């Protein structure tokens, strides 16, 4: 067992302890933690494609929302429990990611990014016009009040999100370390050269987009239970697309810790900003921090740390 896995198990155990007991009596921290953890999953998922492979996905909100809507379909059909919703949402979005992977056959760079943007708009229009999931009116998903042995259902949701975040990070770390990850880096640096070098670029891209889509879908699945009411505007909110890009950028896109740090920092900052300055400044902060980081610290926080503290991991 490596240090990473010991850490992961410790995080989950600590989460379980906090969620099952009343050490933190204040449920606000769970609501806030849920959102931050959800961004850890989203940012990590984005980074597998954006950071490792160099394909920018502007449509993260689309994947997140389809994850949420798959959960709503499951809820409407059979009142499926959360633990059924999550893998199904993941599979649906994974398939979407696979489709997007085929798009990379024809589209490189900016064209691909714009393609993903268009994809999100098409998906939103579809959901708006699909009455079974509420259409433009929105759908109510009533969450159970309690979940044993956690008590408050939101504690359970937050714990689930924590586990998902650990899974996502572990997946990203695996990608990074495996031969697969080096293949993705080669694609990012020069796709043509990678192909010439005998790297099976299409297969690698398909695996990466599928994995990224799967994780985004997983992040969206518990969302209906968290808010209780989903309509296209909130599910396809631009905030998801923006944060999914901004968080890895700020944290650093080259290693798994980057999106995690970015999501924890920016996510927490936003949660604090929500309930303190409560104003337009919130958006301004995202804008300014993003501009500052991409100009002054292109390698993100991870890069800064490496620069000042040697090349430690």
């Amino acid at each position, binding site marked *: 067992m490596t240090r990473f896995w010991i850490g992961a198990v410790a995080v989950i155990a600590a989460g379980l302890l906090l969620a099952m007991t009343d050490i933190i009596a204040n449920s606000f921290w769970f609501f806030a933690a849920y959102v931050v953890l959800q961004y850890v999953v989203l940012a990590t998922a984005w980074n597998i494609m954006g950071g490792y492979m160099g394909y920018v996905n502007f449509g993260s909100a689309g994947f997140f929302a389809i994850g949420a809507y798959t959960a709503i379909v499951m809820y409407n059909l059979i009142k499926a429990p959360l633990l059924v919703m999550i893998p199904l949402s993941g599979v649906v979005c994974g398939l979407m990611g696979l489709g997007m992977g085929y798009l990379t056959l024809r589209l490189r*760079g900016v*064209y691909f990014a*714009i393609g993903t943007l268009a994809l999100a708009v*098409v998906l939103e229009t579809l959901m708006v016009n699909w009455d079974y999931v509420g259409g433009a009116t929105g759908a109510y998903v009533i969450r159970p009040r309690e979940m044993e042995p956690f008590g408050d259902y939101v504690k359970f949701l937050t714990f689930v999100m924590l586990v998902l975040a650990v899974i996502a990070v572990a997946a990203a770390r695996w990608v990074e370390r495996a031969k697969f990850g080096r293949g993705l880096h080669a694609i990012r640096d020069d796709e043509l050269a990678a192909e010439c070098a005998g790297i099976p670029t299409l297969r690698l891209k398909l695996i990466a987009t599928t994995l990224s889509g799967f994780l985004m879908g997983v992040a969206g699945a518990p969302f209906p239970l968290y808010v209780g009411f989903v309509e296209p505007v909130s599910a396809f909110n631009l905030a998801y697309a923006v944060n999914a890009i901004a968080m890895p950028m700020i944290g650093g896109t080259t290693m798994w810790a980057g999106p995690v740090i970015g999501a924890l920092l920016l996510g927490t900052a936003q949660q604090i900003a929500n309930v303190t300055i409560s104003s337009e400044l919130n958006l301004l902060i995202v804008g300014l921090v*993003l501009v500052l980081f991409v100009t002054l610290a292109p390698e993100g926080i991870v890069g800064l740390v490496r620069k000042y503290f040697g090349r430690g991991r």
Partner: protein
Amino acid sequence: MFTFELLWNALVAGVLLGGFYAAVSLGLSITFGQLDIVNISHPAFVILGAYIAYMGNEWWGFDPILTGVAAAPFFYLIGVGTYRFYYEAFERRDDEALRGLAFFFGVMFIVEVVLIMVYGVDFRSVQAPYIGGNWEIGMIGIPTRMFVPCMVSLVMFAAVYLYLARTFTGRAILAVSQDRLALELMAADPVRVKQVGFGLGIATAAIAGALLIIIIPIEPSVGRLYIGQVFAIVVLGGLGSITGTLVAALILGVAESLVSTFYGPSWAPAVAFSVLLLALAVRPQGLFGR
């Protein structure tokens, strides 16, 4: 339900709408198409232009279009400054692709928030004699509110086209992303050329913004809605082709208008983007691509 009256009217409305889309896309066609700078904040500058037109109209009763034209030189300077910064921070370090994108993302937010702080979030609109009029030609009706912006857009297109085709700097802008070296051999500084091109692109946003506020009331965040549309048009037209951009804008306008008249208006945006996805899959170089 189908009548020829509806068809003709849908076509005319589509062309007028397309003309307006063309104006919003022109700047991006230059910055993104010619200069390879993914200026995702372009729609935010369009909104900024719309607010300036609003201000001129509300405070002094100026015509929105004239205000837009008057503001264009200032936008040119803003564009030059933005490019300068972009160049120093990203392009010079050969680091533009991903980080440049994120940078413009941030710029978009900053512009939007500044507008919210200054003007609030209420919807704003302008007054002008040509808003609200309608010409009936046979069975076809032409709302002047759509006609005037379309005409202004065409004039702007013609001017930019002539500038790019006939002047030395203009040709240099067309050449800059294709062959830097050749440009340098002709004693033209690529950075300066791009600076002019980017300035020109942002300058068109001042006028496009004035057209936008003539057509619909605006608030600071409506710019986001146009990001997809303008990129769709520029890509569909073929990067780097000014004529292609115009044609693509007209196609998109007509497609939206036809769907809206004969099928269901709620599908109109999906149709536009489906056309884009299809075009990307089948002919990624666009209609008029090189």
